[in-house]
């Protein structure tokens, strides 16, 4: 079976069977990125992200970079879709209960519900993708210092959950 690089090259040439194979590889990856950021809008975000990925695929110069390139598109699309949705909860982190508070959410979904899409994106890039602040900042187009402060504020409130 061809690897992702070969599939990208064939898809760039308009090979629909390679496209559907690549779609099968990228869909779970994009779903894992869009789910925690866009929450209930995750499927919409994943679909829009994949459309953006495949429409722009002919312009990807380095097929080996497919996953990193797709990640950047997926995270930005997920933030955009989550912000567009009126369901996005834009509560200030200061209003979030402190750790140890009996009201503190017991599962990650409750934790994520209390964060803005941008904060969720930072957590996904750090905790799922393992990116450093500089790289996460470049991807989200914000200064690394902003990533760091978003992360530390989120972690401070939810250390117990994130560190599990």
């Amino acid at each position, binding site marked *: 079976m061809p690897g992702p690089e070969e599939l990208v090259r064939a898809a760039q040439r308009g090979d629909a069977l390679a496209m559907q194979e690549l779609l099968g590889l990228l869909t779970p990856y994009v*779903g894992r990125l869009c789910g925690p950021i866009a929450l209930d809008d995750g499927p919409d975000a994943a679909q829009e992200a994949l459309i953006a990925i495949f429409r722009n695929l002919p312009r990807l110069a380095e097929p080996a970079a497919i996953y990193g390139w797709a990640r950047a598109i997926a995270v930005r699309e997920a933030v955009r879709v989550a912000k567009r949705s009126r369901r996005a909860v834009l509560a200030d982190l200061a209003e979030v209960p402190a750790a140890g508070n009996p009201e503190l959410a017991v599962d990650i979904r409750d934790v994520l519900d209390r964060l803005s899409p941008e904060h969720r994106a930072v957590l996904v890039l750090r905790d799922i993708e393992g990116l450093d602040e500089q790289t996460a900042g470049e991807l989200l187009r914000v200064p690394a210092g902003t990533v760091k402060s978003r992360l530390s504020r989120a972690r401070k409130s939810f250390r117990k959950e994130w560190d*599990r």
Partner: protein
Amino acid sequence: MSWPVAELDAVARMRVLAAALPGAFVAEAVLDAPFDRVWAVAADLENELPRLLRTIRSVRIVRDDGEDLAADITGHFGLRDSFDIVLRPGWCVMQSGRVVGGMAAVAEGSGTRFAFLGAFRVPVTRPLGPVLRLAGRPLGRGMHARLRDRVTEGEG
């Protein structure tokens, strides 16, 4: 502790594939029959494709390696084409040098959401994309109507 994951069903993935192919049309409908019955008809390419697509006269499977198939398809206007095909439950994509076709199905309530995809693989399709997408709509309606008939006939 597990992170939420966004799932994308087969019909949504077919929408993505349609968006990726210049000039592709995708037509969706919900059929009032369970997935298994609908897919049993759709996946029977040799017998059912000529009934669903009026331009096709015959389909002959010439290679069958599990999910990977190859077929010779003859049209009513004498056109003959060899297709490579991926066929798995709820998902089918077929491609020749000139044409791409696709079918996707997913259970929706007690019925089935079904999508047809069609595209030409010629360079001129990029500028003609919007026109071809519009032209595909009545084509899709006809295919869904015939699929609905075939599923209903299968019940009797």
